[in-house]
């Protein structure tokens, strides 16, 4: 980059930056503008679509002079009646949100090629004639203008019923019908729009937004919103849509349903999902021993967001052990953790099992295993106590605990458990022989 360019930064809100914004009529961030050696505009790109390699290709294309503003402008100066050149120049201005110049050039495309026979452009892997695209763009600009005019886009929809741009045309019109059109016209439009794209939650939601705005036709809104939330987004609830359903229930006076939909349980589930994702993320990068600084930060965040989700502490401890940060593991999943979970037998048992498996922190594990039994005597925690004793090489105690576990186990487990008893007995016999 440094070998091809002199890099300059223009920040919005900064005195020099604002002047540069104004000088080049920049209306969106991020924008990358390239200037030629004489300071004239060479090319520009608005927005940033990752990955970075794709952006690099775009910049390289500009450096090579392929379809830059400058080369297209020069071609236009030589042959202002070439439809492709006029169209490309219109698109350049359109991308920079310079609608005045873009519109003028799109109109020129229509004048030069009214029947759409002089070439096509790509749109979502389909071919669209320059003329069709120009008509769509002019319509979109009108629908978004200060005095919104849906006419040109409505005409486009009638003229090109099979256009690949059809959905985009409806989408842009929905802005007008959502905010400005009279209620009756809006309902007619949204009925058509939603029947055309019945499974697109954003389409359905545009109708819902209008219903909420009008505070009328609430039942229709609920029907659409329940379809989004209970059918389409059933396994992937999104607060963007859920909130609207709750809003509709409130408008209907059904507060309980609103609470059921967007209340405490909803938020708790979202928190749980988020912390799960953060821990998954951390475990992934710890496993691959890279990006670990961020992995640690995400584990800390998960534990802070949801301190009651005890197994996140266990997963975090496991990850810190993998990172050979044993002290940190004990700090988050050590005696303090036991003290906070004195009334939960299964959590204490899980804690004891964890440290027994590590062969570390065994005194604390022993304390937790005993406490677990005290709270709820069962096969599983006697077995854990036995394992902890084994790790501590207290085989007589391990055998006693294992025998108790055997006594409490069901028949299926008993069959398997005999092996463990035999194993401990053998170790004890060897110990006796040594003595």
């Amino acid at each position, binding site marked *: 980059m440094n070998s091809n360019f002199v890099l300059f930064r223009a920040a919005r809100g900064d005195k020099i930056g604002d002047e540069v914004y104004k000088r080049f009529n920049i209306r969106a961030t991020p924008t990358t503008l390239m200037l030629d050696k004489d300071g004239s505009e060479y090319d520009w790109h608005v927005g*940033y679509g990752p990955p970075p390699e794709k952006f690099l290709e775009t910049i390289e294309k500009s450096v090579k002079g392929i379809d830059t503003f400058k080369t297209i402008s020069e071609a236009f100066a030589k042959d202002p009646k070439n439809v492709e050149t006029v169209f490309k120049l219109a698109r350049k201005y359109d991308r920079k949100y310079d609608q005045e110049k873009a519109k003028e050039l799109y109109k020129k495309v229509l004048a030069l090629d009214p029947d759409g026979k002089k070439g096509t452009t790509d749109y979502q892997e389909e071919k669209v004639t320059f003329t069709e695209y120009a008509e769509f763009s002019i319509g979109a600009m009108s629908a978004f203008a200060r005095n919104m005019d849906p006419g040109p886009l409505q005409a486009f929809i009638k003229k090109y019923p099979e256009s690949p741009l059809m959905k985009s045309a409806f989408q842009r019109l929905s802005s007008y019908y959502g905010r400005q059109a009279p209620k009756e016209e809006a309902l007619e439009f949204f009925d058509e729009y939603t029947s055309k794209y019945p499974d697109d939650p954003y389409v359905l939601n545009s109708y819902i937004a209008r219903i909420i705005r009008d505070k009328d036709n609430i039942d229709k809104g609920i029907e659409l919103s329940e379809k989004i939330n209970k059918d389409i987004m059933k396994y992937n609830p999104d607060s963007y849509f859920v909130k609207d359903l709750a809003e509709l229930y409130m408008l209907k006076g059904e507060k309980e349903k609103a609470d059921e939909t967007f209340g405490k349980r909803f938020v708790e589930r979202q928190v749980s999902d988020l912390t799960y994702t953060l821990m998954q993320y951390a475990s992934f990068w710890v496993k691959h021993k890279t990006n670990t600084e961020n992995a640690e930060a995400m584990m800390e965040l998960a534990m802070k967001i949801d301190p009651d989700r005890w197994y996140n502490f266990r997963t975090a401890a496991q990850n810190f052990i993998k990172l050979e940060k044993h002290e940190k593991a004990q700090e988050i999943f050590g005696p303090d953790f036991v003290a906070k979970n004195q009334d939960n037998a299964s959590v204490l048992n899980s804690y004891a099992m964890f440290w027994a498996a590590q062969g570390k922190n065994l005194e604390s594990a022993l304390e937790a295993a005993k406490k677990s039994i005290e709270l709820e005597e069962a096969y599983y925690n006697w077995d854990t106590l036995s394992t902890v004793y084994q790790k501590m090489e207290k085989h007589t105690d391990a055998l006693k605990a294992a025998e108790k576990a055997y006594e409490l186990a069901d028949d299926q487990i008993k069959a398997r458990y005999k092996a463990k008893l035999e194993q401990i007995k053998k170790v004890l016999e060897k110990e006796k022989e040594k003595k």
Partner: protein
Amino acid sequence: MKKLFVLSLLLIFLSSFGVAQNWFQGSLDDAVAKAKIEDKLVLIDFFSDG
């Protein structure tokens, strides 16, 4: 989402390639003059802090 868009485009881009960012310090006209001498283009990163 909004935050993503207001981040500096070039900052994201250059960071991802581990490129040292050699931003011109001075006015835009001076940057253009430098570009002329060095036979380069000027690349302006328009960004917003929020």
